[in-house]
């Protein structure tokens, strides 16, 4: 018990330009992250389109806690801890489905209304003249106390400490806004299937990599570089396929990534691709701009579509790609195990070609069978293994550091800066020690 209850020991792990390896490899530290970081911050649960009808549910996790998102009334969504208050049995088998008017435990048939309250217990008289009604069991399924539905995106916060939703995300919500506004009717729905890829590495390695712009031309030379080489052999005049449009920009120069910029927000949020990104030069979908102009007017439509944010990090464990409607969720399982879920969205009212590209991007980049995914996982797993070395206990995050960073807000830095990674660790310390 090196770190539990020891604020000083935890804060000593994060220095201005380096972090101690224990944040990636120590099982106690992982447990503390679940108890503090993933409880004091707003964690993405799911999208409202996954629970369209009253009684629809979707089972997931907040940190390592099993929860259910459920449509309990036509206009509200609840997030409940997914355990029966009797013996702890998880109440759902399928990851999503329709439960009707009640959740029914498969063990002893205790039933719960969609808001989690206890509806019935067989042989209830067995609890007559007891404290059952006032106890844990009698109060039903425990709701997650803080739930916020932001334009269809549902987040939950487990602890009472920690900032309110608006305060936590602040300016960073502009990336979600942009993604949603790309629908001519301002609406998204989950579509295209989800890719689930198990990683034997710490979840933070994945989050840091989202704004690591000095790795694509190196780590992905094998995949994106090969794609460019193969494409060179295509007969002259061949139309550039969508797949090459997706792969090739990964090999952009350092100058491309430097000049795209990184914007740093409070509480660990930030995004790459302020002025341009690898998504800037995709072919237009016929008819889409006309739909957007009709919906928003030309100036506003242009403003929405000119935004080409590359990767937005919603600290601690979400990455969003607004221009292609993709959300990656880095689900922590253990210090050295992370489940990466890659979700895609349909822009309601927009041409299918946009969903087709999004779905292809997801397959080419984020699948367990993706060559780009293989490149990344290889370096994460080597890092996880290399950190066992006692030769150096520190991970370096020093690129383009300046001492006055902590007092600056909503600023744009050189696109190859590691400022956003430092920003994440400043937030990490804040939420790990909040209330201690």
């Amino acid at each position: 018990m090196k770190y539990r209850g020891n604020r000083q020991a935890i804060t000593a792990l994060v220095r201005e330009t380096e972090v101690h390896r224990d944040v990636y490899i120590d099982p106690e530290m992982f447990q503390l992250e679940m108890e503090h970081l993933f409880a004091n911050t707003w964690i993405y649960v799911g999208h409202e389109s996954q629970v369209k009808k009253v009684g629809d549910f979707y089972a997931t996790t907040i940190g390592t806690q099993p929860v259910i998102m459920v449509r309990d009334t036509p206009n509200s969504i609840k997030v409940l801890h997914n355990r029966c208050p009797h013996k702890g049995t998880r109440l759902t088998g399928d990851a999503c489905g329709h439960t009707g008017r009640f959740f029914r435990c498969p063990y002893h048939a205790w039933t719960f209304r969609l808001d989690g309250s206890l509806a019935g217990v067989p042989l209830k008289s067995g609890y007559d003249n007891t404290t059952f009604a006032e106890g844990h069991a009698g109060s039903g399924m425990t709701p997650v106390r803080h739930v916020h539905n932001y334009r269809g995106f549902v987040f939950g916060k487990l602890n009472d400490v920690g900032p309110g939703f608006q305060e936590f995300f602040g300016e960073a919500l502009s990336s979600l806004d942009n993604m949603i506004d790309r629908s001519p009717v301002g609406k998204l729905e989950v579509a295209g299937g989800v890719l689930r890829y198990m990683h034997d590495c710490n979840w933070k390695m994945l989050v840091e990599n989202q704004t690591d712009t000095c790795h694509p031309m190196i780590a992905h030379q094998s995949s994106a570089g090969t794609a460019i080489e193969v494409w060179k052999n295509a007969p002259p005049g061949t139309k550039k396929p969508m797949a090459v449009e997706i792969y090739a920009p990964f090999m952009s120069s350092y100058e491309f990534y430097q000049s795209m910029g990184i914007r740093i927000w409070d509480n660990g949020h930030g995004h790459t691709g302020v002025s341009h990104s690898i998504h800037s030069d995709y072919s237009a979908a016929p008819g889409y701009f006309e739909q957007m102009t009709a919906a928003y007017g030309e100036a506003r439509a242009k403003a929405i579509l000119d935004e080409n944010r590359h990767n937005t990090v919603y600290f601690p464990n979400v990455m969003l790609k607004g221009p292609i409607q993709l959300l990656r969720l880095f689900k922590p399982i253990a210090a050295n195990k992370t489940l990466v879920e890659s979700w895609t969205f349909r822009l309601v009212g927009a041409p299918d070609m946009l969903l087709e590209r999004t779905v292809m991007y997801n397959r080419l980049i984020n699948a367990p069978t993706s060559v780009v995914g293989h490149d990344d996982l290889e370096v994460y797993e080597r890092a996880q293994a290399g950190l066992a070395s006692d030769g150096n206990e520190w991970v370096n995050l020093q690129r383009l550091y300046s001492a006055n960073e902590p007092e600056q807000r909503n600023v744009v830095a050189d696109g190859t800066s590691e400022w956003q990674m430092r920003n994440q660790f400043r937030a990490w310390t804040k939420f790990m020690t909040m209330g201690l």
Partner: protein
Amino acid sequence: MTDQQLIDFVVREARLLDQQHFDDWLDLFTEDGHYWMPVEWGQTDPRLTTSLMYEDKLLLRIRVDRLKGRQTYSQSPKSRCHHVLQTPQIDQRDEEGKCYVTWTPMHYVESRADRQTLYAAWATHHLAMVDDALKIRLKRVDLVNCDAALGSIQLFV
């Protein structure tokens, strides 16, 4: 076309993969051929639903060339694979159009360094005669656990 000729083709295809003759393997596909590994059980659409793989010959060529590349760190050390096939069954036969569909349950093992993973799958081959040679128009691989949280699959099931 005899049943045995179709069976021999499917068996040879797996052998080319096991012996890592990836260029020869790629030559088995028609120019408009596809390799499809769905991510959903019973998936019917490869376009608006994602897949583990849905690759035309260009994408397969990228994969094959990448496996040989010196900068391919995820193949250092290299992966190996091993197919165990049940006898392929001939599901459809169109002698006029020279098109055939076979169905082959299989176990597939992929190994790299100290790690070895077993997958179970059904392969559906859509074959066609092109210039007197049997070719793959579509190879569909349905993993029994297609929707599970999988680790890397780097070679070809």
